[in-house]
């Protein structure tokens, strides 16, 4: 018998009596979402910027220093689709669109389709995610209702810059991923 079949037959023999799968209720939250998100992201070392419209976004992008890869401009960013880690290692800033932002934990869902290359949001020194203010939801349950996790081959909730506290529980912002992270909300 293959290991697969052996494992499955042992599990079948040993599994407990049926236990029902619970429905997940809707939780009601009182806090205003934008303030809640900002409070959370600030608490984990990120920064929130509010921009009125695409015009303001454009201006702000122009103000970024160093090398920028902006995947909201698909045609310009397409050349990085097959770029290797060696080629991307030196990139300063990456700008990607986010699909859903979650107030309770400041996580933003980013899809492979929008990041062009899976490495981009991780290998850069600064990550900027642009999200429509209308795509802000209170909690993870509402977020999972709005996204399809297998829509692309890869998707990720990103909450703040990379960090570690592995040395004496001292929080260090900037571990292997970005050293800084901003969420730009667009809309009023």
């Amino acid at each position: 018998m293959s290991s697969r079949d052996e494992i499955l037959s042992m599990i079948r023999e040993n599994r407990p009596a049926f236990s029902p799968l619970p429905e997940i209720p809707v939780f009601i939250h009182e806090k205003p979402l934008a303030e809640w998100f900002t409070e959370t992201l600030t608490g984990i070392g990120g920064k929130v910027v509010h921009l009125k419209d695409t015009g303001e976004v454009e201006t702000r992008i122009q103000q970024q220093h160093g090398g920028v890869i902006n995947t909201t401009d698909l045609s310009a960013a397409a050349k990085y689709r097959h770029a290797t880690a060696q080629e991307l290692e030196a990139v300063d800033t990456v700008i990607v669109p986010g699909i859903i932002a979650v107030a309770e934990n400041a996580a933003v869902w980013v899809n492979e389709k929008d990041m062009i290359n899976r490495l981009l949001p991780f290998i850069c020194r600064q990550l900027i995610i642009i999200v429509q203010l209308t795509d802000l939801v209170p909690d993870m349950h509402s977020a999972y209702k709005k996204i399809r996790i297998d829509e692309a081959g890869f998707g990720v909730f990103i909450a703040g810059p990379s960090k570690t506290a592995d040395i004496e529980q001292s929080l260090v912002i900037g571990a292997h991923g970005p050293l800084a992270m901003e969420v730009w909300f667009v809309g009023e």
Partner: protein
Amino acid sequence: MSTLPVSHSKAAEAFLADKPYVSWHDETLWFVRSKRDKAARSVPEWETLRELASAVKAHTLSRLDEYLVQFESNAKKNGIHVHWANDAAEHNSIITEILRSHNVQKVVKSKSMLTEECGLNPYLAERGISVIDTDLGEYIVQLRNEHPSHIVLPAIHLKKEAVSDTFHEHLHTEKNNNDPVYLTRSARTVLRNHFITADAAITGVNFAVAETGGFVICTNEGNADMGAHASKLHIACMGFEKIIPRAEDLGIFLRLLARSATGQPVTTYSSHFHRPAPGQELHLVLVNNGRARQLGRPEFRNSLKCIRCAACFNTCPVYRRSGGHSYHNAVAGPIGAILAPNLDMKNNADLPFASTLCGSCTNVCPVKINIHEQLWSWRQVLMKEGYGGKAKEAAMKTMAAVLSKPGLFVRTANTARKLMRAVPWLFNNKLNPWYRQREMPSAPAQSFKTWYKKNRNEQQG
């Protein structure tokens, strides 16, 4: 003949020799527990989430074979190569085969307690494949040739001075520069180079979703993503109990995991892998290694609900004062003490006794595993199987005999108490472990029984 590992109590005694160090260790972990409390308090539905998480896991265990088959089928459709390993040896050999077929020389690995459990690193090293642990804590302990002492904070037993010395020796950082930012940045530079030059990445898995055939990895450092996305080959390893039925179940678990683990609202990255990147190969190894046996033990099967948050470590007053290495098992702490006997009863018979059964572990557990009750139950099983030793059995038999005969009990107890009054040195000596650091209670002239006879029975006539 195999020798038993140093027992928890002996290792703990050695750990406790340096009092200021133990105080620091205790305070550091208590700080994590406090952060967890604060994070949990900020979620009004916290206790409901724990109920839900526990119920989802209970349901999954009751249909585990079906969900694994569903997951396998969906994962294959997604282009993931799925492997099944019955034990640690098979897990290691499957991975070696995959690596060899790609001529891999160097692997970057993000945190996976399963690969620790299976002893993958030494196995690969013996076969000429070098493995770099990329989680900062794991990297530190790897450089020191140690094991992680904590499943979430692998180097929590080390002070920054020790980390600085290790980095100075291996990475040539400035001597005595103990600044955590400096040390972290130094490791970042070295590990970046490993990420971009490695031939393959190995990762763990936090959750695998049956209905979509994908899996989720949670990290703060971004090391799992750096490794997985930079390599042409990604191998993910998971104990089969990591499976959950639906994508929406992730909402429950991700809300609980990081808050329970470190008090963060969520880990920086919750990465959902469904298909390999263009030009990449993605493998997943599903591992049993005793889990199916544990599933068949009704009093212990709930331990398979564990999501490895380590909240039970941080709250455990014994763990905080004995350190992770005293548990001589890949997973330490209270949860380790109920998982380890399933892997090897003889070697781990001491672990369920490394607890006061205070129950704090059960209370912090985000999936409501009855840890302290399982510790108690393991004690019964281990003694029944004869792992307590003849001397302990004999002592317990004598105690049972005395306590079931009231007359004998009174005579024995009164004699002992009178001896304590007459010849205290018989008790107050080094052979009595109570007396080593504590005074014996003072023995009163009369017991309550005697008092009662004089003061109540007489009145009642």
